[in-house]
């Protein structure tokens, strides 16, 4: 037995008072979970502490909270580990972010998380005609979607998504990972429609700021951001969806500029992201409008000699021999019949096998 102190965030909307912190001392073995600690405080000190839980085994996804500022499952975090990573020896537990608090540590998953999950049509739309018996699919195809199927809907990734923090309408990591689960499923009949919908939505796949928060937040290794990148890959490359958000244009411009110069030529990237992947992009109306609206920043940069006119007109690039090597790599890799995607989640590491 050991003694731990929990600092819980309390909030009761019916009281009319603001949220506050409250400390509880508990006695449990160090390998027991933060959830058990909270439940002991609830049983011994104050039955009104609000916490949602069910399985206590990291399966049901009910007990998502923030522990010492990071989202996690309370039943999946050892007390000694949590104490070690606290700022002052006291384990701090608060409700998840990006969702309204119902009471204490319980957030309104329905208002945010589930609404977004429903947004992506989270069920299979089967290919017609439906076979008399089961669908027969290649094994690899289902292995590919297992990572997104590992989701237990705990909301930890939603809690700390940095795009959602500034854009609450962003569909978000959990729902987009769920979308990949069906886009990657060969039995589904609506891959193109699903992708077009998510690419054209201003709060869809191109609204993710690539911040990796959801990868670290997820207790199940779903890596939602990686699933979002796969959705983009399929939408932009395989289905050639030219979305209104410049997502596909930005990627295409970036990739082809590096192919051409070996280095990134940012002065060309901006206009091409708006106007399309051509040197004439900067003269297109959409690009011109954007450049004009960015003018104060660019004018100031020119004034400070930060961006010299030469940098705009004479891009930095590799020597010809190296440009040729880069180009050949592009041609070899892009010339393959099938794109190679090595995913450590699925393949594992060599050292894991020995």
């Amino acid at each position, binding site marked *: 037995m050991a003694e731990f102190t929990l600092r819980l965030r309390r909030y009761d909307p019916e009281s009319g008072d603001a949220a506050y912190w409250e400390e509880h001392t508990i006695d449990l073995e160090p390998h027991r979970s933060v959830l058990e600690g909270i439940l002991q405080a609830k049983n011994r000190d104050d039955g009104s502490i609000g916490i949602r839980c069910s399985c206590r085994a990291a399966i049901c996804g009910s007990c998502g909270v923030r522990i010492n500022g990071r989202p996690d499952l309370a039943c999946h975090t050892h007390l000694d580990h949590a104490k070690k990573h606290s700022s002052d020896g006291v384990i701090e537990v608060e409700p998840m972010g990006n969702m309204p608090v119902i009471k204490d540590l319980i957030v309104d998953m329905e208002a945010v998380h589930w609404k977004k999950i429903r947004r992506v049509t989270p069920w299979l739309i089967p290919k017609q005609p439906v076979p008399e018996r089961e669908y027969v699919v290649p094994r690899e195809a289902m292995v590919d979607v297992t990572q997104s199927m590992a989701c237990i809907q705990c909301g930890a990734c939603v809690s700390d998504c940095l*795009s959602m*923090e*500034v*854009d609450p309408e*962003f569909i978000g990591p959990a729902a987009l990972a769920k979308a990949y689960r069906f886009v990657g499923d060969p039995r589904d009949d609506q891959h193109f429609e699903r992708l077009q919908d998510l690419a054209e939505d201003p*709060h869809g796949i*191109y*609204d*993710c*700021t*690539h*911040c*990796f928060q959801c*990868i*670290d937040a997820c207790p199940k290794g779903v890596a939602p951001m990686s699933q979002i990148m796969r959705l*983009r*890959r399929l939408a932009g*490359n395989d289905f050639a969806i030219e979305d209104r*958000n410049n*997502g596909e244009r*930005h990627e295409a411009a*970036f*990739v082809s500029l*590096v192919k051409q110069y*070996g*280095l*990134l*030529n*940012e*002065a060309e990237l901006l206009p091409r*992201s708006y106007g399309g992947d051509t040197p004439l992009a900067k003269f297109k109306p959409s690009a011109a409008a954007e450049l004009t609206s960015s003018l*104060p*920043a660019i004018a*100031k*940069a020119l*004034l*400070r*000699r*930060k961006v010299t006119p030469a*940098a705009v007109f004479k891009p*930095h690039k*590799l*020597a010809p021999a*190296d440009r040729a090597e*880069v180009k*050949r*790599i*592009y041609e*070899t*890799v*892009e010339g*393959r019949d099938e*794109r*190679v*995607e*090595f995913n*450590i989640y699925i*393949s594992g*590491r*060599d050292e894991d096998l020995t």
Partner: protein
Amino acid sequence: MKVAYWPGCVSRGFTPELHGSMAKIAPLLDIELVALDRASCCGAGVIAEHNPELADTLNARTFALAQQAEGTALMMNICSTCQGAQSECQERLDASAEYRAKINETLAADGLTYETGLSNKNFLWLLVEEMGLDELRSRVVRPLTDLRVGPFYGCYIVRPVTRLGIDDAHPRDAYLGQVIEALGGTVTDYAGAHKCCGFPIITMNKDASLKQAGRHLGDAVDAGADCLVTPCPLCHLNLDLQQPLAERVVGRDLGMPVLHLPQLVGLALGVSPSELGLQRHVVKPTSVIDWTTSVVGEVGAPSAGG
């Protein structure tokens, strides 16, 4: 210490003062830079989004070139995004001999091979892990006394924690604070230090992108920071170059100077602000220059704007 030096693209394009200041301070730290001038763009996550094998092959080529750079102890970068994008590729390359062989097959045409075991460290990591904070402290000639500096890391250098080797023995997500203190400055805690500058979606959702930059800059203002410091030139673009637009989106004046890490180190090593290219920033580093009153005359920043 001799390092295979990867400056990245942005540090030679839109933020030339970053590469310039690194080149200025390297001799003062006894770091010999062997530039990888044959290497290509790391892809900044965008090439990996397009085709992971392509990004892995391009970066394997860079790693192979670094391994060929004679007498170098390791590879060093000066960009959080290069660090993250390259670490992601290296993680895949190192995970499987079979996959590595496939990539090396493509490189073989140009006589290159990547072998596991290359250490690739951002300048920030190198300062703390290779040079050591005591050594850095001993070289400070103009301590940043009374300068309140807010760290801004950039997502790519702090997440995912396992890929980036962040653990109890290597608290790399706390190194900026340690360096600021070693230089004699004061660390300002504020909410945004480990958050996203918003740059990756600047062309896709400009409003959300600038809201992120504006929010973190505003938090730093409220926490009383004199300036921010970042190891990431892409963060610098959204936090400095775009700051006037971010001010409009969040509806408040910010005026928060943002320094590149080598610039902050350079100031403490006694290099003048103009040699570090501080006059090139969009937001005038007045608060920083006031502090080094002795050199204020050398800063040729035009007085317009700021």
